């Protein structure tokens, strides 16, 4: 199923199975696929793998999220805040069976919801990203790349983005009010126009510390809004969580029939998407909402655990490296932290 | 529109008084106006028609409009719905595209209708196979923008309508003006080729396109029939206007006297303005109604009919006349 769309017979089978509460990969209707995190050695880069075990069947989704930051001018409308940008890209070979039109639509719809989930819900504390009000602020950028589209890109992308944001460390900065003569951008990211211009104008200057001078700082997160997606079959009669690609297609003979909740651990709903599809009772929506809240708590915990474990591993790796510095061992330690979300 | 509502009787408690309710295949509007999702009153056995759907064993309306019942068939027609077509319907269409062996015709249906080269009468005889020369000359028969009268021949699998002009009465239209009205407001009549007074004829296409033109004189009719028999290229002949059915033409032929072309033109304009005025007031069009209203309007200069108040008066007067006539 990886490169070709499922046949009508296959989608019909998925639908009849769903009517009996069964799924092709043996999951319960309300179960997520196993979730795995692969953290890179650079902070802020993570790969999330949803359903890695079922990769052969084309039902695994792999998403890479990379967070980066650089100094720049804050937005005119929000001079006291940093800027958060989200860029989503579906890898070029994404689901070859899907027409390019469909692909653009999917890309647009996923990035719209991510925008709501991560930006508009205020997940990242943007005020803490301001360096000099109205002059210099951090521009944080999340690049999300879907490497393998085996269904439910949205949830995977959201988890990946959050894990990357938690994992990310930006260089520490200091503001010097005397015109600095020894303005030295010590990190690559700092050599940028805004600070240079500022320094030239004789105003306060920004000093970016290298990782050796001051430890890099994590981003301040207000909350972790995670996304939980449902797909509906048979006119809303049967529902599954975390649909695979095949299930997504089976659920959308004409138009996508899904609903997505973006929730945080406090049970706050940050975004909700149900555009068309089957019509359903409010009761049903609320049921899904409650289930989504439970799943959201699990997912949040999984993300936090994974990041924590990775950090620990990094710490010990750094220690080990420090100890072995004499031998000039430059090998990078990639940490793999498989975290499986239990049903 | 509000102005008209007090003036016109909007209740539909009976079929309107202009046509024989038992007329050929014509289902008169029955009692009610329904809205989408409204349950329809049906007897135990019925046939599901356009504008209805079944849900949990109940027949519901899917559009807002008037309920029509013809025998067991229950359907709902919305005023602005696109033309859906029935085999044998007389329609007026406009050529949108000339293909290799077909014309795409706009008849206000949900897709372009198809007129195949093999479905038109070719010059030099009715029963002739079309050949490559005909294909090359397609644009000389009908070109983009041309208006023609034709008949619904059938349907393609995807619902597109197939047309034909294989009759003397169909073909390219000239010397007149087209008015587009909602197809649901054109009543099914015995004949859609209507000869009105004062030298004006009209083709009341069931698709809502109405062609109003000068009635050709008996001589022109004859000349045309002659042409058609195959001495010349019929389609290129000037003034070839098979506007009215031959039978109807014969009926007027006796009373045919040369009419003042300006007066005819003004009457064409009157008919046009009357049709638009009636449609704006959501009145169902029939040949007799149009004839009656344009007769009442005859005393007025055609441009005065653009004034809604004048139009209201004309309609009101017509109504009184018809009521008197009824009694």
């Amino acid at each position: 199923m990886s490169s070709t769309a499922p046949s009508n017979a296959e989608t019909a089978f998925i639908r009849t199975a769903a009517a009996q509460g069964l799924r092709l990969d043996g999951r319960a209707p309300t179960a997520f696929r196993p979730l795995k995190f692969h953290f890179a050695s650079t902070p802020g880069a993570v790969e999330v793998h949803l359903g890695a075990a079922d990769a052969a069947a084309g039902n695994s989704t792999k998403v890479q999220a990379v967070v980066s930051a650089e100094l720049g001018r804050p937005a005119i409308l929000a001079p006291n805040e940093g800027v958060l940008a989200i860029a989503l890209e579906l890898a070029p070979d994404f689901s070859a069976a899907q027409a390019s039109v469909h692909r653009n639509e999917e890309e647009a719809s996923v990035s719209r919801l991510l925008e709501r989930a991560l930006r508009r819900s205020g997940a990242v504390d943007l005020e803490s990203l301001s360096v000099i009000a109205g002059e210099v602020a951090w521009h944080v950028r999340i690049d999300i790349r879907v490497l393998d589209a085996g269904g439910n890109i949205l949830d995977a992308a959201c988890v990946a983005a959050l894990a990357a944001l938690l994992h990310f460390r930006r260089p520490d900065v200091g503001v010097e009010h005397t015109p600095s003569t020894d303005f030295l951008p010590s990190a690559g990211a700092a050599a940028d126009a805004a600070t240079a211009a500022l320094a030239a104008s004789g105003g306060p200057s920004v000093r970016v510390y290298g990782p050796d001078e001051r430890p890099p700082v994590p981003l301040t997160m207000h909350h972790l809004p995670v996304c939980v997606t449902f797909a509906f079959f048979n006119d809303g009669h049967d529902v599954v969580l975390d649909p695979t690609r095949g299930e997504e297609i089976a659920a959308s003979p004409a138009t996508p029939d899904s609903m997505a909740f973006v929730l945080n651990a406090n049970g706050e709903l940050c975004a909700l998407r149900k555009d068309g599809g089957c019509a359903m009772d409010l009761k049903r929506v609320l049921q899904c909402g409650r289930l989504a809240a439970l799943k959201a708590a699990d997912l949040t915990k999984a993300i936090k655990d994974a990041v924590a474990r990775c950090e620990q591993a990094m710490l010990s790796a750094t220690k080990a490296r420090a100890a072995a510095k004499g031998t000039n061992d430059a090998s990078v330690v990639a940490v793999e932290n498989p975290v499986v979300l239990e049903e | 529109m509000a102005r008209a509502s007090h003036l016109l009787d909007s209740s539909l408690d009976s079929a309107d008084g202009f046509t024989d309710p038992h007329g050929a295949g014509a289902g008169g509007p029955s009692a009610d106006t329904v809205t989408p999702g409204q349950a329809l009153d049906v007897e135990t056995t019925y046939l599901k028609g356009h504008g209805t759907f079944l849900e949990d064993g109940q027949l519901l309306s899917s559009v807002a409009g008037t309920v029509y019942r013809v025998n067991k068939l229950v359907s709902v027609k919305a005023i602005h719905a696109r033309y859906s077509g029935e085999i044998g319907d007389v329609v007026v269409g406009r050529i949108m595209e000339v293909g290799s062996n077909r014309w795409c015709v706009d008849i206000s249906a949900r897709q372009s209708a198809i007129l195949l080269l093999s479905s038109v009468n070719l010059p030099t005889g009715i029963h002739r196979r079309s050949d490559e020369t005909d294909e090359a000359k397609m644009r000389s028969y009908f070109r983009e923008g041309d208006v023609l009268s034709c008949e619904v021949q059938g349907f393609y699998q995807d619902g597109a309508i197939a047309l034909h002009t294989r009759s003397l009465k169909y073909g390219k239209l000239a010397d007149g003006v087209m008015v587009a009205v909602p197809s649901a407001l054109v009543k099914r009549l015995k004949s859609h080729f209507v000869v009105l007074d004062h030298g004006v004829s009209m083709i009341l296409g069931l698709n809502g396109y109405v062609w109003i033109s000068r009635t050709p004189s008996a001589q022109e009719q004859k000349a045309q029939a002659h042409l058609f028999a195959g001495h010349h290229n019929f389609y290129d002949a000037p003034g070839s206007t098979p506007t009215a059915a031959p039978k109807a033409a014969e009926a007027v032929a006796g009373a045919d006297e040369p009419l003042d072309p300006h007066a005819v033109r003004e009457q064409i304009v009157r008919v046009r303005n009357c049709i638009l005025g009636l449609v704006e007031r959501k009145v169902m069009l029939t040949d007799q109604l149009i004839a009656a209203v344009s007769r009442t309007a005859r005393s007025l200069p055609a441009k005065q009919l653009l004034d809604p108040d004048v139009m209201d008066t004309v309609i009101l007067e017509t109504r009184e006349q018809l009521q008197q006539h009824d009694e």
Partner: protein
Amino acid sequence: MPLSTAERLFAAEGIAASLRIDGRDPLDARTVELETGVILQASGSCRARVHRGSQVLVGAKVAIETLDGASLGAGTSTGLGAALGQGGGRIVCQVVCDPSVAATGGGRCGAGSGRPVDDLTGECGQRLSELLNSAASGIDLASLVVIPHRVGWTVYVDVLVLDLGGNLFDVVLLATKGALCNLRMPRATVLSVDGKQDYDISSHETERLRGAEAIPLAVTCYRVGRRFVIDPTLEEEDCSDLSLAIAVNAAGQVCYMSKSGNGASHGSLIKTMMAFATRRVPELLRVADHCILQQGTRTRAIQGFKV
């Protein structure tokens, strides 16, 4: 939809015989309904609806703009420098079509053989902008200056074409006049702070656009055959090869002229058109002004689009 040769012929013959398809004489216009103050969010607005014809909605907004680039209102400051340099504010006009108008007939107006809609609206916007920013418009452009050479009001006139039924420019100008007569802009007062001039915008005091009532109206004459018609339907417009838009003020002076179409014409026809326009427009202005001023007091839109 393209027209057939037969229909064009019939329409052209009708014009030659002084009996148009809808019964009008060549120099008859259709009735227009005007309604001012329909958009509360705009500083001035007007809707014009021609009987079985075009329908436009005009919204005017004002923004105070400073020459050094940082403008308070949205929009670009291009041309502001030029306008202030000449001692006046400026009026920025834009004519856009409702997507449904743009989409009918494959982006061409009504009759498929007609001009592309974008072309038509572009021309219309250009004409409007040229006319309103000229001294002949009657608008007191100098009254838009707040601090000479530095700060001035920009009036944004946005025209939304809701339905296309021929004779667009005349209708657009009529509705624009309605909207500008209806315009209420906040009063700006100039203060002297430490020898530097500054301004203050009143939050409750408003003033009218000076000279709006003097804006001329246009009659566009379309040549068909050897005659010309005014206020054509889309079909008739399609039959015309030359048109001349003539804007005339209440004094009967020609304020603006613009020709379009492929045709060329002798001066004699142009003279006839101009003579007609200078006679007709003052009459038209009397009726229109009466209509606009009567409704001018209205502030609340009641059922914006009544049928």
